[in-house]
């Protein structure tokens, strides 16, 4: 059984996403349960997340969708009393294996948060390269390459290329969120988790982020939590519907929205509750 993960710098320098091909299973989740201090928020969840596709996680508030997302890159471990049971495999490798450190998991599974959070003391370029620099990458040529590449992928390059050294907080809200996406891309993760990445943005900025996600899925596996059903229907290839900690239904987005197999899913996607 392959449980070791490639270590630190070498991993960051290797071309991550290109090794995996479209259609494969990126994440295998089996029997995943998460509880916080005895309060179970996710119950016995199993699903497969397809590589180079967008998987949307939907459900009413408190249904466990953010918890599910945070368990995938072990961010829930920051919460004291968090307990996880079950198994998550990233391209076959157990991310909860004893000898796997959360730091290494998070380098391969990046995350973008609801509230854009570029580091306020840093310039635009420093925000993009921070993940590399604080993991020991010193090569200026590589850093410059990654900066341009990541900002281009995040559709921000043309807007900031003339002021890379300006403070990151001088950007607009939508630009800041795309900067956070560029920052996550710069370490070349294999999976990108997004926790309601557009919910704090205006419709125009939201449209840009959605466009960007469709572009990104050509190279990345994307899991996105959203409370916006239209957004899930527009962008995702697969949708998982959670309710009160249970995975109610999971399948191709078109099927889940047009002919759901469960009554509760139908009620939710047609706006009858939630």
């Amino acid at each position: 059984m392959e449980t070791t993960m490639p270590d630190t710098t070498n991993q960051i320098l290797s071309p991550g996403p290109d090794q995996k091909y479209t259609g494969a299973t990126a994440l295998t989740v089996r029997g995943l349960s998460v509880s916080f201090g005895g309060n179970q928020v996710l119950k016995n969840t199993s699903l497969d997340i397809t590589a180079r596709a967008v998987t949307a996680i939907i459900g009413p508030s408190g249904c466990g969708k953010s918890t599910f997302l945070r368990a995938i890159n072990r961010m829930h471990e920051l919460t004291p009393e968090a307990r996880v049971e079950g198994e998550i495999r990233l391209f076959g490798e157990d991310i909860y294996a004893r000898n796997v450190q959360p730091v290494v998991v998070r380098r391969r599974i990046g995350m973008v948060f609801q509230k854009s959070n570029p580091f306020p003391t840093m310039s635009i370029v420093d925000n993009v390269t921070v993940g590399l620099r604080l993991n020991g990458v010193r090569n200026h040529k590589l850093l410059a390459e990654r900066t341009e590449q990541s900002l281009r992928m995040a559709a921000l390059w043309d807007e900031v290329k003339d002021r890379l050294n300006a403070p990151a907080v001088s950007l607009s809200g939508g630009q800041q969120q795309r900067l956070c996406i560029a920052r996550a891309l710069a370490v070349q993760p294999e999976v990108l988790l997004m926790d309601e990445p557009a919910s704090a943005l205006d419709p125009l900025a939201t449209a840009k982020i959605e466009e960007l996600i469709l572009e990104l899925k050509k190279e990345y596996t994307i899991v996105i939590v959203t409370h916006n059903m239209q957004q899930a229907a527009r962008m995702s290839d697969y949708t998982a519907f959670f309710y009160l900690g249970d995975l109610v239904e999971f399948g191709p987005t078109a099927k889940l929205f047009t002919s759901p197999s469960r009554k509760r899913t139908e009620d939710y996607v047609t706006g009858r509750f939630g």
Partner: protein
Amino acid sequence: MIAPNHRWRNFKNAVVQTLTFACAVLVVTPLLLVFYHLITQGFSSINFSFFTQLPKPVGEVGGGMANAIVGTFILLGQAALFGVPVGVLGGVYLSEYGSSRLNWWIRFAADVLNGVPSITWGMVVYALMVVPMRGFSALAGGVVLGMMMIPLVMRTTEEVLQLVPGGYREAALALGIPQWRAIVQIVMRTALKGIVTGVLLALARVAGETAPLLFTAFGNLGWAHRLNEPIAAMPLQIFIYAISPYDDWHRQAWAGALVLLVLVLAINISVRFLTRDRISQRA
């Protein structure tokens, strides 16, 4: 429409307003008095030799406090050297690592230490350093001021680190950055101005301490050449001059007090300057 007894109500309101205003003025009065006295009494005694010359023996007019001024800076430098790393790192522990129960005790201990009378600190360091080293020393003076800084710096550091939004910590960890680097290069950097402010305020607070230095630095009418010798400090020199029966020494004491006040004021003003632009702590 006017309620029947509105005059009486307005009168009561005016009384309370006047009373609170009077108390507010009373708060500012001592500061103005201190300034007035120091400037009228001390300013005339400040001249070039005050900053460049050693104290003159009793009976000779003139001389200065050069050794005490330099001594105060040496003591503050040592205090920062001992107190800042321990205080800042302790604050980082409280804010970023500690468990809530242990933190409660550490915070409680720090708050108690902040209230310990300064002469007690002097006695403790006298027993721990001066007695074993068989003599008063600049080093003991630096250590006692440093120890007094630690709880102050620790608590302010913890507070400003807590002001850094958790989103930055999460973002850093989600990039696969090790926790210690995220703390040092992202969280602490974001709160840097606040940390520096805390350190400066702690320095200003210990700069005027006299009692703890009586048992440790002791004072010196000449230059201290090594850290294991007694060293002069402005508060000590002011104290010695002020309780003496000589008019010329009294004048020097006023001048010294004025210089010390200006030093503390300068630190406080630079703190104002630093905190004016609060971008680094914006949520």
